[in-house]
């Protein structure tokens, strides 16, 4: 059996386990118990793998996460444990909310295995510059630092405010706010021994306009939040990080967790390809006009996320991103998503913010 076939089998087994968990009377989640009841018969049993999941579920309506009660999404297995409430990133208005317990710890502990001790040294200090507030990311980064024996400083950036400023045409205010954020980060870096950064590409670039990041003692950076073109990645690696600091792009959000990037190289043209933490989450690149179909490898399509954990089951949510469908690799024997960018970016300019 090839590694790709093995990964498919493992995914199918995981799908069966998670669907059973969310639809069983003992452990199940009200929203999915209702779904099973409406479907009738042995609804959970009819889902034997990921292909059945695609067959049985349409695209998930994300609006439900804005309007439905948290209790409706709380698995009975966690009835006696209070939950965290996490919100999605940079939207305005009522945010999507996801409840959770330990998922973020599991996701980031798995991610930790991809980081080297040389670039992300245990026992040091980290600095996160970016959206904290109600986001899962804030706790996740702190947990990741702690898991690696480190502690983390935080400088917040509120992306919702930045988006409001940009939409109101107040670009100067947005820039002033970003300078305010950078000033705070510079203070921490100046007065404390920070060796790891988590931030966004824009903030990293801005930081690099004020200081030499390697000279400041930073050894490793991981970066996410907005799209990164190959040219942006090259610029960050070659010039901002002066080819001396390890650079790990990440793709993630409150609903999925964290997807790691294939190792970057000049020979690959610095193109980023992300691989979901399968089987806990599955990323597919779908035909924008016929979302049940995948595009061919190498073609562009809309990113679809399925989250499959005991805390949260969300089938086939269409992200607001598009990507190129990439081939499996030896380390990740399932499809990757490459050159992720906002959905429709090729046709019109998307406000991604100054952050």
């Amino acid at each position, binding site marked *: 059996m090839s590694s790709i076939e093995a990964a498919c089998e493992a995914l199918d087994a995981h799908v069966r386990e998670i669907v059973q968990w969310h639809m069983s009377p003992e452990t199940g989640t009200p929203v999915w118990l209702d779904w099973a009841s409406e479907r009738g018969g042995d609804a959970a049993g009819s889902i034997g793998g990921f292909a059945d999941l695609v067959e049985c579920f349409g695209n998930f309506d994300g609006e439900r996460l804005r309007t439905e009660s948290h209790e409706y999404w709380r698995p009975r297995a966690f009835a006696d444990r209070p939950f965290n409430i996490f919100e999605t990133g940079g939207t305005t208005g009522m945010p999507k909310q996801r409840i959770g317990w330990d998922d973020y710890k599991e996701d980031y502990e798995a991610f930790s295995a991809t980081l080297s001790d040389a670039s992300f040294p245990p026992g040091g200090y980290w600095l996160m510059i970016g959206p904290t507030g109600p986001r899962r990311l804030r706790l996740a980064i702190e947990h990741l630092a702690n898991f690696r024996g480190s502690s983390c400083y935080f400088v917040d950036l509120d992306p919702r405010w930045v988006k409001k400023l940009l939409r109101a045409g107040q670009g100067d205010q947005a820039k002033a706010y970003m300078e305010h954020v950078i000033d705070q980060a510079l203070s921490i870096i100046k007065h404390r021994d920070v060796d790891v950064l988590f931030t966004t590409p824009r903030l990293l*670039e801005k930081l690099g*306009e004020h200081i030499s990041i390697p000279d400041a003692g930073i050894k490793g950076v991981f970066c996410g939040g907005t799209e990164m073109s190959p*040219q942006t990645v090259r610029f960050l690696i070659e*010039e901002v990080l002066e080819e001396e600091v390890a650079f790990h792009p990440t793709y993630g959000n409150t609903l999925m967790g964290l997807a790691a990037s294939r190792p970057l190289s000049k020979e690959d043209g*610095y193109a980023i390809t992300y691989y979901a933490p399968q089987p806990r989450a599955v990323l597919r690149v779908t035909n924008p006009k016929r979302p049940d179909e995948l595009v061919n490898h190498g073609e562009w399509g809309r990113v679809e996320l399925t989250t499959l954990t005991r805390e949260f089951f969300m089938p086939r949510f269409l992200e607001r991103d598009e990507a190129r469908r990439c081939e499996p690799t030896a380390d990740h024997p399932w499809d990757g998503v490459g050159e992720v960018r906002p959905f429709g970016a090729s046709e019109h*300019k998307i406000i991604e913010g100054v952050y």
Partner: protein
Amino acid sequence: MAEVPHIPVLRGGREYVSLDTIELFSHRESGGTPVATVSQANAGIIRRDMKKAARRASLLRERPVAELVEACQRAASIFMEEELPLGAAETGGGSQGPADYVESLSATSGLPHTLCRANMLKVASVMENMPRILKGLMRGMELDVLDGGTGKHGDVPVWYTPNADALGAVLPSNSPGVHSLWVPAIALKTPVVLKPGREEPWTALRIARALMAAGIPEEAFSLYPTDHEGGATVLESCGRSLLFGDARTTAPYVNNAAIEVHGPGRSKVIFGADEIANWEEYLEVLVTSVAGNSGRSCINASTILVPSHADEIAAALAERLVEIEPAQHTGDDARLAAFANPALAEMMDAGITAGLEQAGAVDLTAGLRGGGRLRQFEGASYLLPTVIRCESLDHALARTEYMFPFTSVVEVPIDGMLEALGESLVVSAITRDPELVSQLGRSSQIHRLNIGPIPTTQVEWDQPHEGNLFEFLYTRRALQRASSWN
């Protein structure tokens, strides 16, 4: 020339091949092979490079001005005649001679070869005549004031200091002649940071290569083909910048003293009551003012104001302008430029058609040309010359400017002429009336005033009409030295 040259970013003269690229195609061949791949600079690169601006400026400032002026003069013939590097060395290099330059420029800008060569001559003329141009910009002051900052202007002591370590220029794609405006910055010891128009990287690169070949340090030239954000970064990060664009593009910067805005010109020809009866003698001035350089310049007349005879003038002008038709782009008789972006031509045509639906305006060229204003020729889109007779300046088409030969003719009472002008880059006033000439001479809304039958497009470069580059780049300050310290 390489088959498909890859035009690099120049970072202080150093070639940089970006992973972000665009392809340029000939406007005459839909779906054809690209004529160039152009590296695109991300804004971060520009911000990072600008940290080196002071050091790069010092390399120019340490050269005597006389040496820089001579290099500019040498560059004129190099620009006109020599084979110069085009493609990035790491992508196979390639070079471009003057004929290739004209062909490439024509392919992506829509200009016929005649107008490419005319613009080329304009640029070379500025290089060649640099001493006279600097004399005009510096009001006759000795040029060596630039070497030490101090000297005398006549018998008046002066001290000038630079305002910026670089001159930024966000340039258009429509007419390469505008590059003439930034070239003197090099002789004024100021490096340039150029953001070329998307479709026209050719001219900025060729001028830079010619000046480098003539001995100007390569560090004085940064060329950033880039997006909107990159353009804004050029404007923000250079101490002084020139911005070319339409009213929407330039509006956010009109009150920024560090940015000299070159927007719509709204140039005009006006007649005094004393000469209006002789209008037929001046028809050629009108034709050249409207249609010179295919109407692409901000110094082309877009409105003609007359105290009487508007109907006859508009009709006669229309008869002359309809003679200008699309011609083979390589031909010596080609006077009309194609639109590199056909959608833009369609949009302008639709805008004029919509304007004509409002009462008070008639297209006098429509009946003469036979067929619509929008014409396909050699696979390209053209807008044919258009003369609109407007009953009032309040009509939407009376003050509209387009990048093809387009003008309105409006009758205005002579005592309301000055008020009717509004902001005008160039006014050619065909009058000997001393009172009107005096009034025009006091106007703060006219940037270049031609008295007599001078086309609006005729420019004497030693008299700048849209800002004085020397005064933009340098500030006079006061310096006193105790006599006992000499």
